[in-house]
């Protein structure tokens, strides 16, 4: 027995509501973030990720209050991402009750920010979020590239090399989202998940594409992920966290069960 693999429900929050889009468009409403977080906490979620997907400066205050409200009632780790650009942003989120912050676009435009943040707050709370898309053609060796702006802008950065660099700069965890799969329900991109998980020494969270519980199992067994993140399969009541954990435990994966 040892460390359990984690299930992390993700709350994409826009304008104070949990939403979920398919490949970042076609938004559906999934409820009040505090209520949703409490429900997952009661169901045995191992952690909760809160992504502020509008992240305009007007909404920042709302997000801080929401994080405070969640942290006052949910006693499992909470990661907050979306629009984290400065050490001051990080400090505010940590003081509001976040345990970790996710840095995405800001890391691409200013990698030194990751180093500075890790030095100041410790690697344990710096999650670098990577949005990767497969760019190799059929028959070519697999290659994935980093994209920004919800998957719209290519950066020319190789995803595996980028992940290694971010860990060297102090990232304590990698949140890897496949932009090809996000919202499709076709399962994780296991190739890029495994490539990155084997290339870095920090935990990797697989994200993007979960449509059923076997996809979660595959993320760990084939993708070698340390944690699996999903949104819509939990938000709309298709599966509970307990069911997901039980399925993974049945597949021989070490889980934290009630």
């Amino acid at each position, binding site marked *: *027995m*040892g*460390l*359990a*693999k*984690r299930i992390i429900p993700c709350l994409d929050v826009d304008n104070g509501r949990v939403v979920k889009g398919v490949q970042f468009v076609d938004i559906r409403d999934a409820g009040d973030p505090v209520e949703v977080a409490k429900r997952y*906490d009661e169901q045995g979620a*191992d952690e909760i990720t809160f992504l502020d997907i509008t992240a305009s400066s007007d909404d920042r205050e709302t997000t801080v209050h929401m994080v*405070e409200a969640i*942290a*006052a009632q949910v*006693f*499992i*780790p*909470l990661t907050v991402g979306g629009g984290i650009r400065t050490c001051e942003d990080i*400090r505010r989120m*940590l*003081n*509001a*009750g*976040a*345990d970790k912050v996710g840095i995405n676009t800001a890391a691409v435009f200013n990698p030194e920010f990751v180093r500075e943040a890790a*030095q*100041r*707050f*410790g*690697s*344990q*709370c710096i999650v670098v979020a990577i949005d990767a898309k497969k760019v190799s053609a059929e028959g070519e060796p697999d290659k994935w590239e980093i994209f920004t702006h919800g998957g719209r802008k290519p950066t020319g950065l190789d995803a595996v090399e980028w992940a290694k660099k971010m860990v060297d700069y102090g990232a*304590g*965890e990698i949140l890897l989202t496949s932009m090809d799969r996000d919202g499709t329900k076709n399962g994780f991109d296991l190739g890029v998940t495994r490539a990155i998980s084997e290339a870095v*020494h*920090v*935990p*990797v969270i697989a994200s993007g594409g979960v449509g059923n519980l076997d996809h979660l199992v595959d993320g760990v067994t084939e993708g070698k992920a*340390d*944690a699996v993140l999903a949104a819509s399969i939990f938000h709309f009541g298709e599966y509970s966290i307990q069911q997901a954990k039980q399925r993974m435990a049945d597949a021989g994966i070490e889980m*934290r069960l009630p």
Partner: protein
Amino acid sequence: MSQVHTSTIAVIDYGMGNLHSVAKALEHVADEHTQVIVTSDPAVIDAADRVLLPGVGAIRDCIGEMYSTGLVPSIQKAMREKPFLAICVGIQSLMSHSEENGGVDCLNHFQGNALFFGNDHKDHDGSKLKVPHMGWNQVKQSISHPLWQGIPDHARFYFVHSYYVVPSNQNEVAGTCDYGLEFCVALARDNVFAVQFHPEKSHKDGLQLYKNFIHWDGKP
């Protein structure tokens, strides 16, 4: 007019952030007569009935802030006199020395060192293990202790750390965990208890530990 006795818990704020979740978890399990105070005031710490020493971030900054804020005498006084709980980097700060940040002398309440897992840490079967040790792992209770009351042996707690403590005196080990090696995750001596995991992030078993602390008289 009768006065209701209020018990106070000082959560030591030495500038390392994220005390919100510790304070919220304590408040969640505290009864109406218990007051949780996040403070950097030595006088408040000296007057408190119980003291909690959190810890986040790197050890050099933690120890540095404890000294620069002038809190070390109050921390040491509390460790001699009243129920005292240290968590996460807090446990490491109570050791003699940590090898983090090129080597840092700590408060030396428990003899022994904090060591790095290493970036090529391996499981017993030779497979690669990720560092930091992040997530829910099982805690084996080495001793029976008031702070373990109501918590099943081998219950899972939430960890996030890259350094682990190796105490010189095995009699002080209150709990262990397995991650490539069996290592100490809880230390106890007299009125001081220290844990590597985060009770405030460990759901009901973590909250139970805080509840136990609120009611602990400081006797082993």
